[in-house]
């Protein structure tokens, strides 16, 4: 069981001791914050109860428990268990003795970023840390072995280790990690250059579908999400921000709710939000509903989905797009082609809709600021806390709770921490728990950006693709969150998945004349990264249109693609694997049709084949979806399958129901009656094929979501004979059964 918040929040003396011992020992070698090996903490770091911190990644207790330190956030994606597997593999401990612990951002800061980057996003939790955490496990093993060798006065090279037991064959002696950990912790760390990592082919713990370490307390009620937190004397805050983005708070009449039981204060949070604080959240929420508030909604109050759609449509043919891909002369090739196919696709704003809404608990005193928060980036929460409270970093602490959903909402955007501090400052010394209602969460997201895409293809007389022109017109995430990241006016991030060169998101097709452009058209709606970010809509555009083109050529969609993928063996590999597993080309029961899609993102290659039937009234049944993924090294095949299944659930919900529309400037779908989620009965059978190429590290959390929608849409196309060019399906006459 992962000892995190409960221990850290309540066992203050142990927490102070960990930080204090680091300081007393000089904090170890200063390795520079860019290289978080943590291998070089020189002095003995004795933790409570005789446990020994061999290095920052591994603590060994006298009872043989190996506590592996996990720096990244756990949001259900299984990174905690995967990282523990990688460390344990090199450590050569007994997996049964492994438990985990998460250093706080404050501890990371106090120990000069010994654990490195804590941010968890971009499907980088494992691939971004595997090298140094494996080295950390290996270094700890080497020190434990050396400690035994020193004890026995034999060369370390004669000492063997497995499952936490250290042996010297020559003299028949053996000992265990728990017995030598104290001595090991006093040794100097090995030179990182001397550390040999195991070949993944020899993995015994990593690479296996071991059970997750963190399931039990989700089932027995012990798990405390941040929204569950109870602290003595805690107050509760409910918040409302201006329903129209860009509007301002003019006034509110606190006197009208002053007499309500339990209500303490109405607090101006910032220029556009007000909160009510009470002794229970229900009282805070109902007080907020009764509070008269005057907003100045501003000029965006006249915005609507219709106006936004017009604005985007204009970008499809305007002169100001930049070319992200330009090879050959696509316009000329299409002009001279025997057959032309043209289509316009559109996809909406999507909400993250994390099951646990935005929340945090903050306590501010004159010399300490603390926040309990579900966060994808503990250091971002720490920085936000310091910035908002005005207290320096070393007077701030963040208690990271596992997240009830992240999906990109809880990383760089720490707006709820700023709000929590503004409220808690009004109640010094008192923990104040701010929880957003579902309506507030739906209305104040950083949405998946809205876009449209116009695609034109030219086919030769023999059915070969001679030219492809795609123009995406839509909102830019970087323009909203980080405009300086856009170099030379070219926002390549919005063309994710269409890249020419190998990298995180390469297009898997070779097209002789290719033009892919992006026209930036922004709106007043805040946007941000949603699981899979821009691969979602870009896969719909490319893969659904590719089926239209294949059909126009009279060619099977799989064969049509294969002909374009000879230069992309890994993309082709997953496509073939999915097709083989799904039995593409073999007969199906009457009324069942197949659709496929392939796309790359986050360093991994994905392909899907969906089996779908469509009733006369547009009732869609998704029977089965086969997903193949090549993520290079596969740390936990069971967890990969779970992530794939989760991506199908999240992806299908978005495909059938997902849209947040704008009316009178405000976001409209505010709860799960209008922003629906797939029901269990509609969930298809999901089969995961892990294509093992072993020679790289790709992500797992996000890649496969991109192929869910297009494979289902292509199956619907096969079933009905008509392409679906706009999402969600509920607006196109389809329901899911």
């Amino acid at each position, binding site marked *: 069981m992962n000892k995190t918040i409960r221990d850290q929040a309540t066992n203050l003396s142990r927490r102070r001791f960990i930080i204090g011992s680091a300081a007393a020992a000089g904090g170890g070698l200063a390795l520079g914050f860019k290289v978080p090996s943590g291998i070089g903490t020189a002095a003995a770091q004795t933790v409570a109860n005789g446990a020994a911190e061999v290095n920052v990644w591994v603590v060994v207790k006298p009872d043989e428990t190996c506590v592996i330190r996990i720096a990244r956030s756990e949001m259900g994606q299984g990174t905690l268990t995967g990282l523990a597997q990688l460390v344990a593999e090199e450590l050569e401990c007994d997996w049964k003795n492994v438990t985990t612990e998460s250093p706080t951002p404050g501890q990371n800061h106090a120990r000069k970023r010994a654990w490195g980057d804590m941010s968890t996003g971009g499907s980088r939790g494992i691939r971004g840390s595997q090298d140094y955490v494996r080295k950390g496990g290996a270094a700890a093993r080497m020190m434990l072995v050396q400690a035994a060798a020193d004890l026995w006065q034999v060369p370390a090279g004669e000492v063997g280790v497995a499952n936490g037991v250290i042996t010297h064959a020559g003299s028949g002696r053996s000992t265990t990690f728990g017995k030598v950990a104290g001595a090991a912790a006093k040794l100097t760390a090995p030179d990182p250059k001397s550390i040999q990592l195991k070949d993944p082919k020899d993995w015994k713990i990593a690479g296996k579908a071991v059970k997750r370490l963190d399931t039990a307390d989700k089932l027995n009620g012990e798990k405390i999400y941040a929204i569950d937190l109870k602290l003595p004397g805690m107050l509760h805050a409910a918040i409302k921000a201006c329903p129209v983005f860009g509007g301002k708070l003019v006034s509110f009449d606190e006197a009208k709710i002053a007499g309500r039981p339990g209500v303490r204060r109405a607090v101006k949070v910032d220029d556009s939000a007000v909160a009510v604080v009470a002794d229970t959240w229900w009282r805070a929420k109902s007080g907020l509903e009764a509070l008269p508030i005057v907003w100045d909604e501003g000029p965006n109050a006249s915005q609507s989905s219709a106006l936004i759609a017009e604005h985007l449509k204009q970008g499809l043919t305007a002169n*100001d797009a930049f070319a992200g891909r330009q090879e050959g002369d696509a316009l000329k090739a299409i002009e001279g082609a025997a057959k032309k196919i043209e289509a316009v696709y559109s996809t909406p704003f999507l909400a993250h809709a994390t099951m646990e809404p935005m929340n945090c608990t903050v306590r501010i005193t004159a010399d300490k600021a603390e926040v309990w928060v579900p966060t994808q980036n503990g250091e971002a929460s720490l920085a936000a806390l310091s910035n908002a409270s005005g207290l320096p970093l070393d007077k701030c602490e963040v208690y990271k709770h596992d997240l009830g959903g992240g999906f990109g909402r809880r990383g760089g955007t720490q707006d709820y921490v700023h709000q929590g501090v503004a409220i808690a400052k009004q109640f010094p010394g008192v923990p104040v728990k701010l929880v957003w209602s579902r309506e507030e969460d739906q209305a104040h997201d950083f949405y998946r950006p809205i876009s449209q895409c116009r695609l034109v293809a030219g086919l030769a007389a023999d059915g070969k693709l001679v030219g492809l022109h795609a123009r995406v017109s839509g909102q830019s995430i970087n*323009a909203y969150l980080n*405009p300086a990241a*856009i170099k030379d006016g070219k926002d390549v991030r919005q063309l994710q998945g269409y890249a020419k060169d190998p990298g995180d998101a390469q297009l898997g097709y070779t097209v002789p004349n290719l033009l892919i452009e992006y*026209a930036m*058209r*922004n*709106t*007043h709606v805040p946007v941000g990264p949603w699981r899979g970010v821009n691969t979602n809509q870009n896969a719909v555009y490319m893969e659904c249109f590719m089926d239209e083109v294949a059909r126009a050529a009279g060619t099977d969609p799989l064969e049509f693609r294969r002909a374009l993928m000879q230069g992309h063996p890994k993309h082709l590999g997953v496509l073939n694997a999915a097709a083989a597993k799904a039995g593409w080309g073999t007969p199906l029961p009457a009324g069942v049709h197949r659709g496929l899609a392939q796309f790359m993102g986050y360093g991994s290659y994905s392909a899907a084949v969906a089996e779908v039937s469509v009733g006369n009234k547009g009732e869609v049944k998704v029977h089965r979806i086969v997903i193949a993924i090549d993520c290079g090294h596969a740390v936990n095949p069971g967890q990969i399958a779970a992530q794939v299944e989760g991506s199908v659930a999240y992806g299908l919900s978005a495909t059938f129901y997902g849209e947040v529309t704008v009316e009178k400037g405000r976001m409209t779908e505010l709860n799960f009656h209008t922003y629906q989620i797939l029901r269990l009965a509609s969930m298809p059978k999901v089969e995961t094929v892990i294509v093992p190429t072993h020679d790289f590290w790709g992500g797992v959390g996000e890649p496969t979501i991109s192929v869910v929608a297009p494979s289902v849409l292509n199956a619907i196309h096969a079933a009905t004979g008509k392409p679906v060019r706009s999402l969600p399906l509920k607006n196109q006459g389809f329901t899911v059964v």
Partner: protein
Amino acid sequence: MALARVQLPAAAKRGEVVEVRVAIKHAMETGFRFDNDGRVIPRNVVTSIVCRYNGDEVFRAETGSGIAANPYMQFYVVADATGEFVLEWIDDAGERGMERAALTVTA
């Protein structure tokens, strides 16, 4: 805040080093942001901040988009004679601003 603020003690002894704080209300448009039509919003930042004490320049900052919105500067000056602090600034668009504060210097 009005367009600018100059803060320093109202009085100081001759030779005392006093802290001066200036703040200018200015968006410091970086030239990297985009409007809704995807066009770059032109750069307009404060490029020069000058402080004069009894007519002599005692502080000058050449600034750019790397200075945060509502530029804030804090620096020190030796109080030598009663008189006036004048803050002046100019931005990319040629807009100029000025703010004054008085300092009484005693023996």
